[in-house]
């Protein structure tokens, strides 16, 4: 394994290209901008197209169009820009178009935006939240596979730290198995044959090939997302026998939890950690199982309390649950602030343990 010092944005770009991404469009917005710069530099050499779109809305709709032709297509922004794209996210879902969204979030962990979404209708976005750059490289490739496998938009939730930190990485291609051909993709070849293809959220079809219509189509989609929910949850649990306190976190904050938990455990504190790797599907059953024997769950997320809702849904009946994170911005407004700190986290954990239920 040969390590090369790379910025997270560059590593993610390389991973996307290795995964076969051939279309990327974006609008500059920190801390997503470097990913756009890297794709602009590298994608054409790989035979792809990268467009610096004039607006986020145009970027996502370009990506949607590219996906409709069967190409592996992606876009992204930070949470603010993703907010602008929400209608198109829903459109991708209801059209069953695979598009990968890179959310390089600013200081706030936008869990709700990824898991509850802001588009209309009933859809979900498979969301992976890497805790460090090597995992972001793996998740990027997995997301292109899952998007195609399930014909759905998907999200990589990164942040300033993942985008801007440099670390020694070895970006290698990963294989996830064969996928069916994209018979549904548009290329004009069925035009004039009497069997022309149609991609439409209302799925009415054409006179020769009638579709199920919106009611049945959207019920079918709801069923598809239920199936994904049952099959694709991923998590990491470090809860040895005798654990009394479990800290739940995701993304970059989870790296801080790992660090502090290791120290505290070495000092004899009966503490463990649980990390949803997919934010959706949320690994609720695994969380409930992992924390079955413990007395207290502490949720460390840098927002006003979002994932804690899902923790409560799945583990509230038995255990005391407490948020130990909070809103934290640094002075630039681009990244997390002082709460992203191992000492602060340690203090809050010990305080929560001392204060009891």
């Amino acid at each position: 394994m040969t390590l090369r010092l790379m910025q997270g944005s560059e590593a993610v770009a390389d991973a996307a290209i290795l995964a076969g991404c051939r279309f990327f469009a974006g609008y500059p917005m920190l801390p997503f901008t470097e990913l756009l710069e890297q794709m602009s530099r590298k994608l054409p050499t790989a035979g792809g197209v990268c467009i610096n779109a004039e607006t986020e809305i145009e970027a996502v709709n370009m990506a949607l169009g590219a996906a409709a032709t069967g190409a592996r297509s992606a876009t992204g922004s930070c949470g603010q820009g993703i907010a602008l794209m929400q209608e198109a996210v829903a459109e991708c879902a209801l059209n069953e178009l695979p598009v990968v969204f890179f959310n390089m979030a600013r200081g706030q962990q936008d869990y709700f935006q990824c898991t509850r979404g802001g588009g209309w209708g009933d859809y979900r976005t498979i969301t992976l939240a890497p805790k460090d750059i090597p995992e972001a490289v793996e998740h990027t490739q997995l997301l292109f596979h899952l998007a195609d496998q399930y014909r759905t938009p998907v999200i990589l939730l990164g942040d300033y730290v993942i985008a801007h930190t440099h670390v020694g990485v070895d970006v290698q291609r990963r294989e996830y198995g064969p996928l069916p051909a994209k018979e549904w993709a548009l290329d004009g070849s069925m035009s004039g044959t009497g069997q022309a293809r149609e991609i439409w959220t209302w799925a009415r079809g054409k006179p020769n090939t009638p579709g199920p219509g919106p009611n049945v189509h959207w019920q079918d989609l709801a069923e598809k997302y239920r199936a994904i929910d049952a099959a694709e949850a991923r998590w990491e649990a470090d809860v040895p026998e005798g654990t009394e306190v479990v800290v739940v976190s995701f993304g970059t904050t989870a790296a801080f939890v790992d660090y502090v938990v290791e120290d505290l455990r070495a000092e004899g504190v009966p503490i463990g950690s649980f990390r949803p790797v997919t934010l959706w599907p949320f690994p609720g059953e695994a969380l409930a199982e992992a924390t079955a024997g413990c007395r207290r769950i502490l949720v460390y997320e840098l927002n006003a309390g979002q994932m804690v809702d899902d923790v409560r849904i799945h583990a509230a009946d038995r255990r005391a649950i407490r948020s130990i994170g909070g809103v934290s911005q640094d002075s630039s407004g681009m990244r997390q602030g002082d709460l992203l700190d191992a000492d602060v986290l340690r203090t809050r954990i010990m305080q929560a343990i001392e204060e009891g239920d």
Partner: protein
Amino acid sequence: MSVRRGEREVLFTGVGGQGIQICSRTLATAATDEGRYAMLSARYAGGMRGGMTNAEVTVGIAPLRALPVASSAWSAFAMSAEHWETIRPRLRPSAVIVFNSSLMEAPGGVDDAQPFGVPASDMAAELGNPMTASFVLLGGFAALTGIVTIAGLVAAMRRLIPAYRTEHLAANEMAIVAGADAVPELAAPAWSAAETAGSGAEPAGSPVEPVRQA
């Protein structure tokens, strides 16, 4: 907070334009190219010149447990004193402090600190390339600590300088070497004998294996 054995943190501070970003990146690149594990985080204000510019590099002999925000650090690299206070509280007792004595006195507020002043700005001016001052200090830092080799530093610098600035390669190299020559070699070694033996030994206290769903 426990100390991760086998990992060394360097906190950089200066003022925009003094070369903090290129030097921290050069150090991290050199460490990676020499087979070590490195992480680099940078924090800088909006302006290209004159604002606060900090960076942190962590180098390790094994895959890093370190976080992108280091709670405590083994050393400091200071080009000027303006923003010293943003890194001082995180330096551990006996921290190695390598500073640009042309622009600042030995900074205080760290117990049992090991300060090493290098007149980097003056030396760079004498060499005819005032802009290479930070590379002078970087050469000094590397020679004092042995955190990376001088040859490795030079090679990394050559790779990182953009194509449109190659006229600076020779001057930067001169600065690195001059800085290295100006300090007592390995006066504050980064690595212990066991660590430099290159056995790749795991740091003491192995972490619990996490359970991971495929």
